[in-house]
């Protein structure tokens, strides 16, 4: 069984972005870019399923600019077998990405698609669910455990208040939460090996997908600043402030 794994190139999670002075967006020129952390967990999970013999091939997909090839190389250094880049300079929104992934799922016929639950740039949390809708496949979002049992996926999900477990028929869509696994460090030999792996490149037109954005960003602004308060000397002073100044207890 083959898995398709979607990876997004995003501003590294350690970078604190700045809003551009003309309010058109955030300044991402010359900032470090990395694989979306949830997608890294998705790649790791697929590679582990392959190592357990559940999967036979892990195909990693990224949609976006040419530099997304670096993200694909990272995924292949973790252990993905080959890559697909859907190359475009257009701004891609979740619905468009879900349609591109649907087109690739039709081509590749995977048994499962694994994605990160959310990208840490637009914080949308949509693409996996949208792909599941477009393919009419069952979905298990926010996964913390994935197992193949009798030809079905048993997925434990992080929900409000605790965990729940679903049984999905295949093919299915899974999105990853933080506790699913801890991605391995990529080693130099694996980075070198990844350079030789194949990347196929398509344009959205090749897949018959209109990626025109449906949501217009009118303005991007700084969030209201929260100023630092005061330091209190001891617990007694803290209790006094909470009771008499803030009046919250």
């Amino acid at each position, binding site marked *: 069984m083959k898995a398709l794994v979607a990876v997004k190139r995003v501003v590294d999670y350690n970078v604190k972005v700045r809003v551009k002075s003309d309010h058109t967006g955030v300044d991402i020129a010359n900032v470090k870019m990395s694989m979306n952390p949830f997608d890294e967990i998705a790649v790791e999970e697929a590679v582990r399923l392959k190592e357990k013999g559940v999967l036979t091939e892990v195909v990693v997909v990224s949609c976006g600019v040419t530099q997304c090839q670096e993200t694909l190389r990272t995924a292949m250094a973790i252990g993905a077998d080959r890559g697909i880049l859907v190359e475009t300079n257009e701004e891609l929104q979740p619905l468009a990405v879900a349609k591109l992934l649907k087109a690739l799922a039709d081509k590749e016929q995977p048994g499962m698609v694994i994605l990160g639950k959310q990208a840490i740039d637009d914080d949308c949390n949509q693409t996996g669910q949208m792909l599941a809708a477009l393919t009419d496949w069952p979905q298990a979002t926010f996964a913390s455990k994935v197992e193949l049992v009798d030809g079905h996926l048993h997925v434990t999900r992080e929900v409000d208040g*605790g965990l729940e477990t679903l049984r999905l028929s295949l093919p299915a869509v899974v999105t990853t939460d933080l506790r699913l696994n801890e991605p391995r460090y990529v080693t130099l030999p694996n980075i070198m090996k990844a350079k030789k792996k194949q990347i196929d490149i398509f344009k959205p037109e090749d897949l018959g997908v209109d990626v025109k954005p449906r949501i217009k960003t009118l303005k991007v602004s700084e969030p209201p600043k929260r100023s630092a308060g005061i330091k209190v000397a001891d617990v007694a002073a803290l209790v006094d402030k909470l009771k008499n100044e803030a009046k919250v207890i």
Partner: protein
Amino acid sequence: MASLVIAEHDNQSLKPATLNTVTAAIACGGEVHLLVAGKNATVAAQVASHISGVAKVLHAEADVFEHGLAEHMAAQVLALSSAYSHILFAATASGKNIAPRVAAKLDVAQVSDITRVDSPDTFERPIYAGNAMATVQATDATKVITVRTTGFDAAATGSSAPVEVIQATTADAKSQFMGSEIAKNDRPELTAAKIIVSGGRALGSAEKFNEVITPLADKLGAAMGASRAAVDAGYAPNDWQVGQTGKIVAPQLYVACGISGAIQHLAGMKDSKVIVAINKDPEAPIFSVADYGLEADLFVAVPELVSAL
């Protein structure tokens, strides 16, 4: 123009997030209807009918709605969608799971996690862990929206709207609910709590976390939260995580104990009314957002605070 709000409930009572979502729906203009899809959910539908600003409650009954699986819930919402300009979900684990499925089936974009309604098609939402706020315009005919509950007040209750029982629409069963482990406790729900006591990696172990944080939470009648580091280390359960990709909270009082304050954590709690930080590292970033910072060893300061309250 009318809005449909998808109620989140356990078949008996409504989740508080539904009330905030109704407020967002009212701000979109037009009549607000509430969908209660459940199993033996008559009581929940009755409770929903008392929310002020709701013109009608639609009650759909089916066994498969019991656990709110996305496939079935989306099918039910889609069956009703043509009558609505706006379809709103709370941005909870449940709402986030279902809403994009509805949007994709309608071939419309979804606007996630809105914090303000500027006009019926223009919304404000945080991006980059709340380090920037985007004002966005949705160009599709139907707006599918998830609502960040901390951005909107809870709707009042006390009115009485009619409850209309509707035909249930469900999907093919490709997924099945097998079981859940939901922690039962008497504490307020994290996202609806007035006071939250949160612990970080500095606690050092699950035992210490419980020993130090629980008495303070008990004393304050607070919900308990945790940083990602504490959850990853196994000191606290997954669903206590406060932050960009965990719970977004805005209580009256947030007490951060031994939390350094990574931007991802701040993203989840910086809208709290009053923030207290207890940390022995004077350089901890949490102090930059705290109203009251106490530079102290939490193992000494927190028990002292418990006895001083």
